[in-house]
């Protein structure tokens, strides 16, 4: 596609054009076509999202089972704690169940938070993050602040080629 530079003709140029249109029926026809309302664009079918399908699937599942998207998309400020709490029960119950179905969750470290722990030489820096006074060589002694989470036993269902997982929840229309 070539870039078109937009031109804005001055008043006299436009007046001249007007006279040309008066004398030239073919030109008038062309102009009419140009200024007519554009034809409604055909809905472009967007190819289904493939690369991120499983991520979108998780979002859709959390919405379907635990209404997570509904919850996050609402403005909580205007509601009472009572109302937020009631909704949170729906979200917590449903999302927990969905999560349990998809994966088993286990802490990275078995020790209780607050316990003294030893970080050994050659520790996995993805599984354990050091904070505070980080200096010297391992092994380190420290206090467990957060035990971390890992997902084990992933049980993702097989996804369909024919579904666009960007639709996190369909609109529901009830027929009477």
């Amino acid at each position, binding site marked *: 596609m070539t870039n078109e530079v937009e031109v804005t003709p001055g008043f006299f140029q436009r007046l001249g054009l007007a006279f040309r249109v008066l004398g030239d029926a073919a030109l008038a026809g062309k102009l009419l076509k140009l200024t007519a309302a554009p034809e409604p664009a055909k809905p472009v079918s967007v190819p289904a999202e493939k690369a991120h399908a499983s991520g979108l*699937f998780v979002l859709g599942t959390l919405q*379907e089972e635990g*209404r997570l998207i*509904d*919850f996050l*998309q*609402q403005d*909580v400020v205007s*509601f009472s704690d009572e*109302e*937020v709490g*009631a*909704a949170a*029960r*729906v*979200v917590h*119950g449903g999302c927990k169940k969905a999560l349990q*179905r998809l994966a088993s969750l286990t802490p990275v470290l078995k020790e209780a938070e607050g316990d003294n722990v030893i970080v050994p030489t050659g520790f996995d820096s993805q599984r354990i993050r050091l904070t505070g006074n980080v200096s010297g060589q391992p092994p380190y002694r420290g206090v467990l602040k957060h035990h971390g989470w890992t997902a084990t036993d992933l049980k993702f*269902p*097989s*996804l*369909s*080629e*024919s*579904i666009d*997982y960007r639709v996190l929840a369909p609109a*529901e229309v*009830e027929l009477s």
Partner: protein
Amino acid sequence: MARYSIGIDLGTTHSAVSSFELPRETVRGHEQSVLQIAQVVKPGTVDELPLLPSFLYLPNKNEFPDGSLALPWNKKSDDLIGDFARSHGSKVPARLVSSAKSWLCHPGVDRSAPILPWQAPPDVEKVSPLEASARYLRHLRTAWEHKYHGEKLHEQEVVLTVPASFDAAARDLTTQAAMQAGLENIVLLEEPQAALYAWIEALGEGFRKQLKIGEVILVIDVGGGTTDFSLIAVTEKKGDIHLTRLAVGDHILLGGDNMDLTLAHTLNQRLLNEGKKLDQWQFHSLTYACREAKERVFNDSKIKKTPIAVASRGSALIGGTIKTELTREEVEELLTDGFFPKTKINEMPVTTRRTGFAQMALPYAPDPAITKHLAAFLTHQAKALTGNSELPAALKGKSFIHPTAILFNGGVFKAETLRERVVDAVNSWLRVENGEPAKELQGIDLDLAVARGAAYYGWVRQGHGIRIRGGTARAYYVGVEAAVPAVPGFEPPINALCVAPFGMEEGSEAQIPPQEFGLVVGEPTRFRFFSSSLRRQDKPGDVIADAARDEELEELSPIETSLPAKDSKAGNFIPVNLQAMVTELGTLELRCLEKNGSGRWKLELNVRMKE
């Protein structure tokens, strides 16, 4: 040669499949395998779950995107069975087929006619209870074959379970459904027996320590929609332990779903009083929330009350969510006392005498008190079992059968409170007659035991382990018009002729002494058909007067046969004898044998309506 024994539990609300590799010499113990059943959980998503909800949804043509109902073994599938069928069907009830199994044993309707969903609008392409059952079985078959690449299910030893209370026609229909699903030669097994097999397998040889000769096991199976009782005696023959199924109860349409609904209706009424109205979908999620709340309360005795939140239908979740709570008192009053009241042994359930003629909807039990149904079962069977040689001597002469052990099955009994309540009730009855308290047999998975026990039974059939004997749990009768002078306006009484006695073993025949039956060539001949779960002493050929009014007899759908007019002229009358046999597969067959000739005609169990 079959490589696997497959147990299929085709339940009213859930189905499950278990496999047992036959060549092995020992029981599976805890590695009993349960098929993870692939099913659509939402459009475009297939997941594997251990249970297949027995629900069939009949979608409108443009309801879901093309290919979004595909199954791993069928990309073009438009059959919607299982998890999504149930959850979506709750929003579109007119297209949802549920409880097909209860319809399958309902003699008041034509079970091969497209009647489900019951009272669906005309544009829904309905299916018959038979067809729906066949589709569930086909789904289970293909799911299994897909998992066990290349193996064919019909080449395996397949055991399909039925409620002990299923009569001959319902058993026959179950076999037909299996055939339609491509499963020939399946073997039928009663569900309470399957549960006991699962217990025996789970305990291994250890079960012999828990059961002594002379004991009577009461199996109480409360499923999603039905309640089923069986009595199994532990006897001894030549030093070997034997298990004999003594009796089965009547078909009671009452189960765990009724309990969840009771809680939901109570809370719904409270919300209505507060001016909060739930729509159908919200009521469904309230029912579901009640089931979970019930389990929370039952599983933790410290919980005094548990909150219940019903999400808004629209996207405004905060502010739109309806909150209420369920207290321990409510759960105990409505469920423990409502369904398992502490009653006396002589308190019988309220019954409405079934007329059977105009009754169309499912015949739900009018009395929800399972303990009363149990009392009725134990009392009636004590009478019926008087003088029976299989009954352990210690139990003779009691006003009700004294069980020594109770085996529970069904998800309802995950609640310890309910198991305790039943044991308490039974033991309070036993105390009155100075009986020893009954113990609870533990160790089975309450959701999956029936499928597992059925797979184990396939192995037992090959000569391993211990087999429960017992034969048919009913006697069968054909109706014969009594020879009395005609009285205008009065139907002549019908006598019942016993054709198949109680306790016929698989693969056995019963000869009926000669009678005066005749078939008319070229015309269908029908017989009225009766059964009894109580009359144990009747022998083939015995006649019971005035069958239609006998409390111990239940009228079933009629049986019929049609003689093709070949050699004989149409309208001719051929004298015949009746013969009954129980097939190796566990179904009843009735034949007419030509007197002084070689003609044989099968009597079909009519699955259509009673007259």
